């Protein structure tokens, strides 16, 4: 079947099968930032923003994208660079494989929550697994980033 959607600000059409998942479609379209870590919707690596909400693209049939808006890290390079620089300055990027899905969810969190505390941050991002960092560096990066965004300097 044929679907049309907005991918990173561009109108996109694609020929898909009924069993194509959004994850596979996005990679087919060259969005290589989108990763798969588990196939069972547990790890958060395949997170993309779908009509403004973070979703797991490995668990979403591609046909549901018809008429919708999808953002991946390829379309959010400025945001990724800014927040990513805070992660890099903590050394919390590490192997990097979980970074895109994690950063997508941080961007979604920033859009959704106002001044979240540590507990709210952890809760919002609980579905994003990382095996390298122990998450502590992530939290440092997020707090420094949010305080920078509040105009409190770097």
């Amino acid at each position: 079947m044929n679907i049309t959607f907005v991918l990173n600000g561009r109108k996109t059409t694609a020929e898909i099968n009924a069993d194509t998942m959004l994850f596979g479609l996005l990679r087919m379209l060259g969005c290589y930032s989108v990763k798969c870590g588990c196939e069972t919707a547990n790890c958060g690596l395949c997170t993309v923003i779908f009509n403004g909400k973070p979703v797991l693209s490995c668990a979403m049939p591609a046909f549901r994208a018809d008429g919708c808006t999808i953002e991946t890290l390829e379309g959010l390079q400025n945001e990724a660079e800014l927040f990513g620089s805070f992660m890099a300055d903590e050394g919390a990027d590490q192997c990097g494989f979980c970074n895109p899905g994690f950063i997508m969810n941080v961007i979604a969190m920033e859009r959704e929550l106002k001044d979240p505390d540590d507990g709210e941050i952890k809760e919002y991002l609980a579905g994003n697994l990382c095996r390298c960092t122990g998450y502590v560096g992530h939290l440092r990066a997020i707090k420094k980033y949010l305080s920078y965004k509040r105009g409190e300097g770097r």
Partner: protein
Amino acid sequence: MKSVNEPVRKKDAMALVTGKPVYMDDIAPKDCLVIKLLRSPYARAIIKNIDISPAMKVEKMTAVFTYEDVPQKRYTNAGQTYPEPSPYDRLILDRLLRCVGDPVAIVVGENEKAVDKAMRLIKVEYEVLEPLLDFTKAKDSPIIIHPEDNWKVLCEVGADNRRNLVSTGVEQGGDVDRVLKECDVVVDEVYHTKAVQQTMMETFRTFAYMDAFGRLNIVSSTQIAFHVRRVVANALDIPKSKIRVTKPRIGGGFGAKQTAVSEFYPAFVTWKTGRPSKIIYSRKETQTISSPRHEMSIRVRLGAMKNGKIRAIDVYTLSNQGAYGEHGPTTVGLTGHKSIPIYDPEAFRFSYDVVYTNTMAAGAYRGYGATQGQFAVESAVNELAHKIGLDPVKIREMNMLKEGKTMPAYYDEPNNACALDRCLKRAKEMSGWDGKYPCVKVGKNRVRALGVALSMQGSGISNVDEGSATVKLNEGGFYSLAIGAADMGTGCDTILSQMMAECMSCSVDDITVFGPDTDVSPYDSGSYASSTTYITGMAVVKACDELKKKMYALAAKSLCTTEDKVEFDGKNFRSQKGTLSLEELSYINTDNAGDLLYATCSHVSPVSPPPFAAGIAEIEADIETGKIDLLNFYAVFDCGTVINTNLARVQAEGGLLQGIGMALFEDIQHGKDGRDYSNSLMQYKIPTRTDFGNIQVAFESSYEPTGPFGAKSIGEIVINTPLASIADAIYNATGVRIRELPATPEKVLMGMLEK
């Protein structure tokens, strides 16, 4: 120092955080054949017959390979220096299947759909045999896991396939039986650690293609490029000269990728078909048929006097190797070598058996046996403290290894640099030990408690691990650093560049780093055994020294003076005769018929200096349900000089959480038929960010004279302290002694009910 001991940003950081296509499947050719493996549903079976003809009728199918198609020379896929201590006991495909998941057929097609369909159409007739699943019954069992005649070992490690033995041995110092008899108190207990998975986020994966020279190019997510070249050549029975191995960015390894798990299949398919091919392990495969930590049962006899003086330690380790022998003889060694020396006993014995069973083959996982051994010995020390009524910190202060001593249970190595005493002191302060130990009641059913453990690891494998570096000055005045070590996300590309920047008085940004590529990089045994900073780092320092000598010589010649009259500040060579910039020197180098400004050096160390650690767990136990919450983990590390302060901290935090996971949640569970139930991230639970309170890390530096800039290692030691410290905190909160991990609420609650 300008670059060393600084929080330098990882050189690849911005590519990683912006999601650039730098991993194996991002760069694999789009026309790769897709490979999947049909796997055994039985723990032990013989293939009677395979009918592939219906599968080959599927459109877009390319080939199905079975045991009849592969070379019959056995090999090991352990990433170790030749001659490998692991037995040569594998074939790419074997007729005798030795565990659930053992590959039965390699299924190859133009796309995933075709392969999936074909997999269902392959008809296999099995003769199902009784499996040997209990590792305590494996030695001299009538069921022999490897009955074949062409099984072989290259090293004397006590292996005997007829007895299911991968390795056996005993080492001792002093008369341990006599000293134990003289002791006032003897703790004699058995501790059991389960197999656990590294669970790196990027699963095992490899692609292969043939190049213009008819050579097999393997691009793999691996920690061991050079070893992959050898073991694939062995497996395919082709010359090593026909193979080139490189790695892209790697999505984590933690030792899992120190075994060549996925490389053989694309290598074999591409060699046979001439076409590019790839395999991407599913998460299920990565969790169930890979290279996890060895399950071990460890008996400790620890003898001490009433005043707390530890006099004798006797450790016997039984290690469950699973179906194939990767890393068996070597992991077991660390259970004694890295646990006994911490207490410097006057007598010790360390004996072990490593046995084959019909379970998934174990491999290398961060800590590599030290983790298991220290859970046992550190737990025994805690039990001893309780027995004689001493504070567990106090008993460690009395007995722990001091700087300057030799370590009889650790190859008689000198303990050159050791801040273990300062680590423990600081961890105690950070945790507020005095006042909180042993426990504080904080609610009707809630108790907070502390527990402590110490740790040591090594820095590379002495006299075995080899690291190398090639450094050169390029046109324009920037440098290149080529290495054979593998950055798997830990940041060694950056750390080694920091060392080079320090040597050459330049910025990390003035250095490009490349490798590993088995065709181009200087040889490196690979990134494992906590070796890269210590071993390859020293090679970088040596190579820089040599390069500088050549640069001074050329600069002196150009300035018409002698080398001793030239000074170099990183940008300019100055002498009384004039000044020559680095850039000018680089141009002289390009039209200079003499010695090129280029140096390659390698390094092997006769010692493996241990980094040290002290860890304190603060938990809150629900004494009604047995649920344990980790509130805080306080850990202090002595890794010598810290090269990158950020990356060392994150290594520590990440490793500690893996240890916490192993202590509280992680467990590979099998059914009675040998099937692995822990086959997804739903069934195998690694910690999320809401599963713990906080992790607080500090460093107490020592200076290791044999390391680059005084550095030792950090990569592995970080995982060790949570196990025994959490177990003792649970004891202090609930009175329940956990001797088998993980410490689940069920075990804690059952323990409380039994009392």
